[in-house]
């Protein structure tokens, strides 16, 4: 299936807060990162969690966030990062809509 993002793309995690089963950590929402690569193309955990078949499969990206972007008061080395696997439907191109 086609993928909307490529390695090196700057992306932002949608600042959405739906109830229910979500695999996008709260601390990444609304934050900007860089696509490191495609982690997998997999069934959607958000629907699998309620007994559906999880189809269609969705690209999941490894997104790298500078720790200083996640935590303004980050005390470690400025080069430190967190890498989080995020489903494509949670990502927008950085600079795009916040929701």
């Amino acid at each position, binding site marked *: 299936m086609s993928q909307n993002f490529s390695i090196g793309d700057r992306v932002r995690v949608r600042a959405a807060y739906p109830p229910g*089963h979500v695999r996008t950590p*709260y601390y990444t929402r609304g934050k900007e990162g860089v696509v490191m690569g495609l982690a997998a193309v997999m069934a959607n955990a958000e629907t699998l969690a309620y007994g559906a078949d999880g189809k269609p499969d969705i690209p999941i990206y490894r997104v790298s966030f500078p720790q200083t972007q996640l*935590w303004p008061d980050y005390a470690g080395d400025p080069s430190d990062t967190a890498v989080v696997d995020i489903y494509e439907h949670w990502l927008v191109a950085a600079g795009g809509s916040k929701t």
Partner: protein
Amino acid sequence: MRRHHDMGGLVADPVVPSEHDYAPWEKRIDAIMRLTTGDGELFAIDELRRAIEEIGPGAYDEMSYYERWITAMTNLLLEKRVVSVDELGRKMAEIEARWKAEAAQ
């Protein structure tokens, strides 16, 4: 809304690198998971995660890891009508009585 299981970055106690050897009852709960999830099985691992999240903030932190698992798996088995409340209640009473009798011997 931040849900209670979604804890990355929250202020927490210092990490203590503690561990224990898993007890047989914990491994048995792990085995139930392995035998009930996956293709063609009773529920998806994502459903188990969802059911664990639904345990609720207070109980979630009060229970140990495998206590959360068996609570969530039992709820899923009830939801999916694999077992009924009545048969579960009777079976639990039977096992409790059996174990108490064994302990008294």
